């Protein structure tokens, strides 16, 4: 299963296999966790500014253990009150963040897959050797060529200048 998920993330599964596997991921929490872990590993490897991690479970656990203080506010102890307030603010902030991550998690899986597929492209990734040929052939019939003539071919010319696909 883990291997399959890894292959899926590389975008190398067929449409039928993808559908089957996504069904499994939806049904099995363990597979779902693998799916999230793999994404986390991938994110960490790419060294982005932020790494997405589902911390909501840990926070709810901590919150359960927090005592609920119902004592009246002591005016003399204003410093403690200040700290309490900032603690509440931090917890709120963390809760908000975890809520955000939960929100992100609720994006339907098929959209995540689409996103994952789309995000894999890099500016210079050659689809294959002939990409410039496809671009040239496309421009021939594109309505934009009607509108601005050969200047619409700039997309193909500039592509070659990047040195990709050569």
């Amino acid at each position: 299963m883990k291997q399959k998920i890894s292959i899926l993330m590389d975008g190398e599964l067929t449409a039928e296999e993808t559908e089957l596997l996504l069904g499994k991921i939806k049904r099995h929490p363990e597979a779902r966790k693998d799916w999230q872990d793999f994404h986390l590993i991938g994110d960490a490897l790419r060294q982005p500014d932020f790494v997405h991690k589902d911390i909501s479970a840990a926070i709810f656990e901590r919150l359960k253990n927090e005592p609920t203080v119902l004592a009246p506010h002591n005016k003399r102890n204003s410093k403690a009150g200040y700290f309490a307030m900032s603690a509440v603010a931090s917890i709120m902030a963390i809760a908000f963040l975890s809520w955000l991550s939960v929100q992100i998690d609720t994006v339907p899986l098929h959209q995540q897959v689409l996103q994952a597929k789309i995000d894999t492209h890099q500016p210079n990734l050659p689809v294959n050797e002939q990409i410039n040929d496809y671009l040239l052939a496309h421009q021939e019939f594109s309505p934009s060529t009607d509108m601005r003539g050969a200047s619409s071919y700039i997309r193909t010319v500039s592509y070659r200048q990047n040195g990709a696909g050569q």
Partner: protein
Amino acid sequence: MRNNMLRLNSGLVFVFLLVATVSTFAEPLPVEGNSWLKKMVLAAHKTDYSGTFIYQSGNYVETSRITHIFDGVNELERLEGLDGERSEIIRKNGQVWCYLGDRMVLAAKQEGARTFPALLPEQLSLLAENYVTSPGEEIRVAGFQAHSIIFQPRDKMRYAHKMWAQSDTGLLLKAVVLDEHSHVIEQYVFTQLKIGGDIDRKWVSERKAAGKNIVENFDSNANGRSRPSESGWLVYALPAGFKKITEVTRRMRDNQGLVAHLVYSDGLAGISVFIEKLRDKTAVKAGFYSKGVIQVYSKMLDENLLTVVGEVPAHTVMQVAESVRYGGHQ
């Protein structure tokens, strides 16, 4: 996944119908927009001009020179990159040559070339179905008084376009493509332009462009040549608003096999679907490529390589790519 897609489609169709109905009542027919569009297309083909323009997409900026001449019968055009390595495109009606390394290569040749495609009535009606056309401000661009037109898409399957045409001739001076968040995806603007008058024809002569040390390679008989055909390939879940314009079979450089090329349009944006039998699968990298407004997606389809190219958002290209099937008999 497929079910979701269908649901999404029917949802979009519904929204589209709703918008279409509402807009039918809300606004008069964009006759003015249409006449500007016709004027622009005509100007692009019939005007003599020469100028320098800047193309920008993301962090990428490039300067190019363009010369266009119409002698009453033929259209001659030359596009020359002014930055970095030498890059050139020469166009004579339906034939396109491009400069590759040290030689000019015929990249496209349409048999019975449409020397003058102009804007067909059905294309205008497609455009009206998919975009709300409205006039924008009048402003100066590259020293010329320009009239701007906004094409707002009626759904999320396409981008928004804004164009600035020279008030007298209708020649396109500036064009911007925007995504659904109104972020600029790419823009193109003239910084210097000469319209009409005395434009040196040498600029667009093929020989001059090719230079002295160039091996002429125009005679590679089948290269880039295309002819109308029916391949039997179909796009089942074609995004709403797109119609098939034509279908050709062509040979491409470095590829001995025939490539089926299906062309779709929504009036403003084009989508091309290429299908070819594959001999060497190891040479192929399936994947996604994006350059400004252009998205390219390649994948294997049994023994065939499928490539979809379009000036549309990534999800539109994906929808087309995922729904290509063979429906013909052989």
